[in-house]
């Protein structure tokens, strides 16, 4: 009955790791389908290349020529600067809007206008003002990230349970203590979900920023490869963007686990 024991072990392993197995299977199926489409259905490397080609191209660009690194660094820096700047600006401004009706009234029309205007429309203006250096690129990323962070910080503080505020009054807590011990921790999950929303928008911002007058960066790489019909490099660039997003998401999830241990489950 050795094979029965083997079956039981496999079923048990599946039950314990079902979610990880589902994810791995999903990725594997996607890659196989991609390869099939590229190698059999399309069969034209000018349109679509197999994931195997992308991997070998990426390997070459990372470990043989090393030409991918400058692009990775350029994009990472622009992203990080823009993202961090929007946290530094967005979170406090969101709090101020939540706590002060006057700030809210003054900021609201600007916020809605800027939020709903397509950012890509700002890109040429920002290039004109800030030049083609890092400044305009960081600004484009910033414009993408700051609103979800600001709006979530604002909203998180606005929807704090009224009973908690009464509790603070009942315990005769000072305003600073109310902010630090109740309002801030209560809005933390909202801020973190704002950070998650901002991640994708920030990476989009990087791509847009680097299409305009850049000389390095993943956006530039993708744009240039597209212009020169270099399909393998094009896919390496797109994949690198995707991986940056995944890494950012995982980092945020770790932060979320550490910062909000009272939450039973976080969105995976």
């Amino acid at each position: 009955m050795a094979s029965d024991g083997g079956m039981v072990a496999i079923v048990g392993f599946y039950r314990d790791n079902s979610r990880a197995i589902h994810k791995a299977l999903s990725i594997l199926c996607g890659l196989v389908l991609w390869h099939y489409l590229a190698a059999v259905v399309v069969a034209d490397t000018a349109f679509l290349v197999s994931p195997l080609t992308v991997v070998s191209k990426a390997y070459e660009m990372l470990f043989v020529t090393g030409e991918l690194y400058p692009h990775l660094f350029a994009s990472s820096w622009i992203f990080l600067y823009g993202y961090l700047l929007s946290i530094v600006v967005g979170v406090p401004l969101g709090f101020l809007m939540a706590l002060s009706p006057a700030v809210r009234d003054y900021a609201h029309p600007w916020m809605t206008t800027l939020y709903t205007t397509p950012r890509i429309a700002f890109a040429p203006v920002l290039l004109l003002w800030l030049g083609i250096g890092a400044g305009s690129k960081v600004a484009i990323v910033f414009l993408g990230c700051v609103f979800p962070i600001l709006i979530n910080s604002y909203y998180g503080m606005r929807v704090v349970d009224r009973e908690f505020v009464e509790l603070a009054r009942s315990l005769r807590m000072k305003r600073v203590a109310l902010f630090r011990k109740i309002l801030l921790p209560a809005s933390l999950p909202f801020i973190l979900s704002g950070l998650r929303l901002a991640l994708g928008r920030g990476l989009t911002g990087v791509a847009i920023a680097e299409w305009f007058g850049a000389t390095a960066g993943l956006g530039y790489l993708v744009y240039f490869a597209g212009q020169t019909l270099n399909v393998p490099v094009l896919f390496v660039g797109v994949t690198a963007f995707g991986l940056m997003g995944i890494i950012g998401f995982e980092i945020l999830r770790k932060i979320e686990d550490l910062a909000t241990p009272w939450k039973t489950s976080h969105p995976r």
Partner: protein
Amino acid sequence: MASAILELKNLSREVTGRNGEPFVIFRGINLSVRDGEFVSIVGPSGCGKTTMLRVINGLIPPSGGQIFVDGREQKGAGGDLLMGFVFQGAALLPWRTSLNNVLLGLEGRGKSPAGARELARKYLDLVGLSGFEQHYPHELSGGMQQRVNLARALAIEPKILLMDEPFAALDAQTRSFMQLELLRIWSQTKKTVLFVTHMIAEAILLSDRIVVFSHRPGTIREEFRVPLPRPRDMEVKSDRRFVELENTLWKLIEEEVKAAGGFAKL
């Protein structure tokens, strides 16, 4: 006879209604509570009893009248920490453990961290939650959450405990257990309690005195002394005096509900 620890003089609260006219929630409340007394306020839904409790605690200002604690007039929420408030929903901070929730009221009050922790532990122990200090609220049942809520209010060692329908959201069985627990805790702490409820039997079981509110605008309709000896347990519910008082109170509240326009208007 002990002197009054809480004294309400002609207390009232009104807000501006939808049509711009003043809307009276309660008015003309004169009430005096002795040290160590357990007083319940019962009345039809929406009679303003919860609002009055919040006014007494300084959570919302009165429109008129005065509140005295130990002979000193209370003004707003700026004063000393003399009253502990037990909220209807437990109002526990989900990011704090039981212990840290109880500690909330002790922080920044000049106590040493170790001393404050010891006090918090003592009151968690009193409400029967030793061993659950490091649990987060979502890991506790509704009854346990209310115990933490009570421990938090007791830990600041207030002169008066204000309880706003603390067992209303619990299932009937848990509610009965919590009522017995409150009897035990009250007999151990000898706190003055002002307890708001809409459950007549709960009020009789727990109280020394019951104040019946009229329908809106809330005024004191009548007061009753509960003629039952202590210590009490569930047996007391079949006592003839308990049943008689329950009937009397029920008739009063029924009258109030009818005067307010009937059950459908509740």
